[in-house]
């Protein structure tokens, strides 16, 4: 019996090692560094600075606001799209087409958008064809949010699509047999049953959106400053790893908060 148990433990070892090396150790290091100042002295100053400085708090508010908008727009676009795709005949092909852009490097996609949105870009040429004067599109809030939403949409569609295809047809038939309208079926049956998919979509999209420093520079022209910009600056320019780590800890904590808010209560559902 004891033999068997230790044998079983052997199977766990790689996973435990993986967790320890690539999950627990980095997080522990970030937390450890966040308690040191630029002279490598132990201090709580970084946290005090973060929560006392108007700059960092505004930046946090900005980050949350933009991440919220990006997530909202991705849901608004993704849900109807997932719904339509799940009804199509060749739905596997369509969902493949949705995933396809994720195979392309983020930087390449950003540069493609620069080509589209620039002053002499494709969108402005199209506008001038219809007699609309050229617009400044790069370096605006709108274009930043739209490009970020475009990049996040595949990650939102997939979990929603999966939860949609999980719904058995018998529920939908029962709903229409019992006299529900299409709208009622959608709001009372489909949306509640796909809530887990929406929630995991939010988890995947919201957190990375908090720190899209590369997009905020390339598309937003650094007029939108999020926490990611500050982390980059602290690690690369001022070499104040303590403050950079403190912001990292704040991001990790906010991730935990989002996870708690969107966690599905498994017990109730499965029972």
């Amino acid at each position, binding site marked *: 019996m004891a033999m068997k148990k230790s044998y079983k433990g052997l199977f766990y070892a790689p996973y435990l090692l993986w967790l320890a090396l690539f999950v627990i150790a980095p997080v522990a290091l970030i937390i450890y560094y966040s308690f040191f100042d*630029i*002279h490598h002295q132990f201090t709580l100053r970084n946290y005090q600075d973060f929560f006392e400085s108007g*700059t960092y708090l*505004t*930046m946090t508010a*900005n980050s949350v606001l933009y991440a919220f908008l990006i997530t909202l727009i991705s849901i608004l676009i993704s849900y109807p799209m997932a719904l339509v795709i799940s009804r199509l005949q060749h739905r596997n092909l369509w969902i493949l087409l949705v995933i396809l852009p994720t195979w392309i490097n983020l930087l390449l996609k950003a540069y493609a958008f*620069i080509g589209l949105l*620039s*002053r*002499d870009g494709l969108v402005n040429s199209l506008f001038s064809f219809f007699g609309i004067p050229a617009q*400044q599109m*790069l*370096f605006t809030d709108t274009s930043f949010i739209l490009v970020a939403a475009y990049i996040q949409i595949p990650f939102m569609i997939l979990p929603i699509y999966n939860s949609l295809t999980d719904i058995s047809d018998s529920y939908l038939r029962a709903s229409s047999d019992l006299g529900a309208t299409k709208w009622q079926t959608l709001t009372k049956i489909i949306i509640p049953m796909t809530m887990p998919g929406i929630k995991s979509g939010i988890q995947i999209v919201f957190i990375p959106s908090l720190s899209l420093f590369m997009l905020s*520079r*390339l598309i937003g*022209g*650094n*007029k939108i*400053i999020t926490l990611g*910009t*500050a982390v980059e*600056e602290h690690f*690369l*320019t*001022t*070499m*104040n790893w303590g403050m950079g780590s403190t912001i990292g800890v704040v991001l990790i904590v906010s991730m935990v908060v989002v996870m708690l808010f969107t966690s599905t209560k498994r017990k109730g559902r499965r029972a």
Partner: protein
Amino acid sequence: MKKFVITMITILLLCAGLGYGSHELTKSTGDSGDKVLNLYNWGDYIDPALLTKFQKETGYHVNVETFDSNEAMYTKIKQGGTSYDLTVPSDYMVQKMKADHMLIPLDKSKLTGMNNYGSAFLNKSFDPNNRYSIPYFWGTLGIIYNDQDVKPGTLTHWNQLWNPKYKDGIMLIDSARDIMGFSLISLNKSVNTTNSADLLAARNKLFQLSPNVKAVVADEIKMYMAEGEAPVAVDWSGEASEMMSQNSHLHYVVPTEGSNMWFDNLVIPKTAKHFKAIYAFLNFMNQPKNAAQNAAYIGYSTPNNQALKLLPKSVRDDQQFYPPQTVLKRLQVYSNLSPEKVQEYNDLYLEFKMHH
């Protein structure tokens, strides 16, 4: 699933095969052994033809590794485990590395051709008497404008950037020291000031610049300017010369009231091992014809006056990149600031970027 596994294994084997092949290739060109020089340089910052020539003349093979910021280079050398023989920090970073005991002084008796350098480029505040460093390239911070939007000769002062006619028309290079720097110069202050009141004033002045700022970007600024996305930009002379080679409507000007002057310098870090190769290389680069070839390839300003004489007249007389003495006198070199002051510059700069 089986197909997937087979594909993955094929790709991995291919990579391993190619990796082995390239390892063999570099070995046969003398990567290992004593006849090497490990150069840690900025990306694309030396004419590759010079490296071949150097190997032919001296037999030393140069391994080049690259970095993209002074801070990245500093961190990598400081963390150890490297064996770089030469690296190319900018002015303030020479000072910082020196203060942190990361440099080996130059043995002047082994150096030839030091008198090729112009006196304006030697004995600077960051390294008195050039004990540790030899200037490699130098340049300035200035204004780039597109002559389709801005009349040539009308934009010659930092203060003109605040003019409302450039509304939403200026691109800035994403660098705290440089942006705070030109604001300080426009207020008649030193770019190395540690006076908090001056720094606050510089930030407040930048706040007023906000309506004119179209974007604060990094390397992409070259592409944007070459494509005519903005009429005006603030950037370094080296970047400007690259933009101008892509778009003939662009011009570069160093404001006459002064600006920053930067130097990239060859230094020997503490990790160096191949000293014969190091001095062979330094002396090779000191030779006017080699320095001139490098300058022609990179397009930056060379501090080697004998090399400058070998460059075409159009380059020599180009006041954009070789400003006249009157302007040269007013240029200020950055000195290394304490970590607290660096933080202060960056915090104020961040506040400017967040200001709308």
